[in-house]
């Protein structure tokens, strides 16, 4: 009677749409909190990145001699090239930010608890890939800023314990920032990382579907995922689109001067904003700390902390309230470090 009594459209009847969304109709989620839409927003930003990235790929030349000029051509000559590059650059920042916001939201809601460990881990992988995409993308224009960021960013990798030297060489594609660095960054940015991100996103969503109702009682007012949540998500998406096109239309992402490896790395060289905290740890720690290499010790501690974050669902099975407070303190520390790095 339920199915027969429903008003189904002509198209829904024939496309199997009704069967597809039936499980989503049965699933309910909490109706409160904007942060619930951050996951979907991250997905939309990724799709915007793919679409605008493909358009940029039509004109970009991954070669140290031609890269800067080809981006200059995109900005100066190709119709709407500047707009599309702005969209790509701004969405990338928003993508990293919303990914971070989504992670924080999951921690604060303690949604990492069993049986969602795999969902958490796949999310951590997605975060790593996302940051990798942003970092490799920043290298591609081969402007002086991009070149310096590539150097500073890969230099920081040296301080990671155990893997440091390997990571340093891996990011540079050799011992120095060269044409190999650009070539590798390009390959990873347009092929390896987007493919990996798509794969892990699929895993992430499948793990989302595996959610079992009985283990996660919905607190407070709840709404069905379809159509209510999806419609609200779509409304949030329109907001994101407005934000992206507004930023892209009114705020140019300037290209700067071409890369000149002969120029010394300026003392105020900084990595991209999401690595500023890392930079600050390395820059501010004394060379020698209690008899060990200062930066290495602090970065090692930070990496240990990172490992704790990755292993969170296994360390905190019950979902202690204190975890949420610790997460807020950690975010505060990261923000303070980043702000300090800028001044």
């Amino acid at each position, binding site marked *: 009677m339920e199915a027969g009594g429903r008003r189904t459209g002509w198209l829904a009847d024939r496309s199997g749409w009704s069967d597809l969304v039936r499980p989503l109709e049965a699933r309910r989620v909490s109706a409160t909190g904007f942060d619930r839409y951050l996951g979907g927003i991250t997905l939309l930003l990724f799709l915007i990145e793919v679409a605008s990235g493909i358009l940029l790929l039509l004109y970009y030349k991954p070669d140290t001699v031609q890269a800067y000029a080809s981006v200059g051509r995109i900005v*100066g000559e190709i119709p709407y090239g500047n*707009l599309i590059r702005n969209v790509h650059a701004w969405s990338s920042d928003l993508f990293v930010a919303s990914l971070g916001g989504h992670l924080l939201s999951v921690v604060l809601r303690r949604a990492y608890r069993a049986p969602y460990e795999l969902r958490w881990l796949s999310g951590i992988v997605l975060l790593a890939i996302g940051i990798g995409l942003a970092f490799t993308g920043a290298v591609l224009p081969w402007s002086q800023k991009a070149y310096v960021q590539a150097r500073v960013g890969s230099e920081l990798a040296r301080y990671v314990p155990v893997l440091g030297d390997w990571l340093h060489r891996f990011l540079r594609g050799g011992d120095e920032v060269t044409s190999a660095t650009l070539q590798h960054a390009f390959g990873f940015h347009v092929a390896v990382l987007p493919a990996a991100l798509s794969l892990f996103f699929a895993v992430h969503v499948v793990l989302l579907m595996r959610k079992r109702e009985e283990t996660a009682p919905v607190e407070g007012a709840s709404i069905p995922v379809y*159509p209510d949540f999806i*419609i*609200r998500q779509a*409304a949030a998406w*329109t907001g994101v689109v407005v934000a992206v*096109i*507004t930023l892209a*239309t009114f705020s140019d992402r300037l290209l700067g001067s071409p890369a000149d490896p002969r120029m010394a790395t300026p003392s105020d060289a900084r990595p991209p904003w999401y690595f500023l905290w890392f930079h600050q740890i390395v820059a501010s720690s004394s060379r020698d700390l209690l008899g060990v290499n200062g930066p290495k010790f602090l970065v090692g501690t930070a990496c240990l902390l990172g490992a704790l974050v990755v292993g969170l669902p296994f360390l905190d099975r019950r979902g202690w309230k204190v975890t949420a407070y610790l997460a807020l303190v950690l975010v505060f520390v990261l923000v303070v470090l980043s702000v300090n790095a800028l001044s």
Partner: protein
Amino acid sequence: MRSPNRNAIRLSVIALALAALARQPDAAAGPPVPAASASASPASSRALTPPLESANTCVTCHAGLADPKLRAPTTEYSSSVHRDDRIGCVGCHKGDPRDPTAGAHRAAGFLPHPSHAEIAGVCGGCHSDAGFMRHINARLPVGQQALFNLSLHGKLSGAGDTMAPTCSVCHGRHEILPAASPKAPVNRLNVAKLCAGCHADPKHMAPYQIRTDQFAKWERSVHGEAFKKGNPLAPTCTGCHGAHSATPPEASSVARACGRCHEEELALFEQSPHSKGFKKRGLAPCVACHSNHDVAPASSLHVGLTPDATCTKCHSNDEKPLKAADELAGLLRGARDRAAAARAAVARAGDEGLHISGAPFALDQVATAELKLRPVVHTLDPKRMAVAVAAVEQAAAAAEKLVTDAEQGRRIERRGYYAALALAFLLFSTLSLKAWQLEGRRRLGSP
């Protein structure tokens, strides 16, 4: 006269090589000897150089002499191009290089002090001999002495005037450097100062009754300014007057000197009414308007009827030329304003953050068209000027079109943005309405 010279040098090479081999064992025990060489042979290898150097028997004695007049040449010579090319003391002073004692001075033709009049002949002995010079430096010209003899400098010094320069006055004596050396007084960077050394000295120039302000005027001229900025094409004294053949250009030839670089200006000038008029009155072309040593930048010369205009210096009452000057001035002013407007439009677009990749090129085109106006002024023909001005206007219009196109593109982009904004708002409203409607229905449905 040349042949014995050459033979003397060749002989000296062989003799010195032999002497060197003979002296080698006790060379180390001898007094310290300043670096110097006595070889002129292109065949002698570098490996032979140390013994040969210690074998410059002139230096062996002269370096130890108490009289600075007799000692100084040995040190001066050590930095000379002649030492590098292994032309020894005997190359110029002759004497007998086989005799390592004062007996060498007694040889026939020994020339301890070449007189002012003799010097050109001494230098020319080698430098006018193409067959000999090609063994030393095949790229060095060999006609300097002939040219010098044609120059006023050469004629005066040849006639026994010791105030007029001969080779050594400009090039130095024992310490001669190649002209390419930045330290050489005849190097392009130093030659104007070298000329000024005599020509800006009123005492030196008094007997010849010529002016002494040329260097000061050149320094503040457009040529001097360009030279100071490092422009490698900017002429110094020799650029117009020549070097060895330095001769004052007469009114009839000055245009040829200017026209060597300013070809188009000269060609157009020769088609103008000025060309004939100047010839009739014996006026120097170019100089009448531009002056010579203190030639001013073209931009500071005014074409027109104002009191400071160049035209009114001569044409105070001539009706027809003044009419043409007025027309030319109007055309030039129009072109200048048009080009300035195009530059301002591009600058404004840059301030507004518009990306116009073709703008620098378009402005270059405007500047090129503007630069082409200058030669056309020499025709004094408003019709031809109008054509050149039209080219400026065309280039300016092309630059402005890039700006208007970019502005139009931005307008379209902005319009698209607002349309997208409206669409997003509509979508957001629809979705919100739908969400609100669903929630309302669920509340009604659930008890």
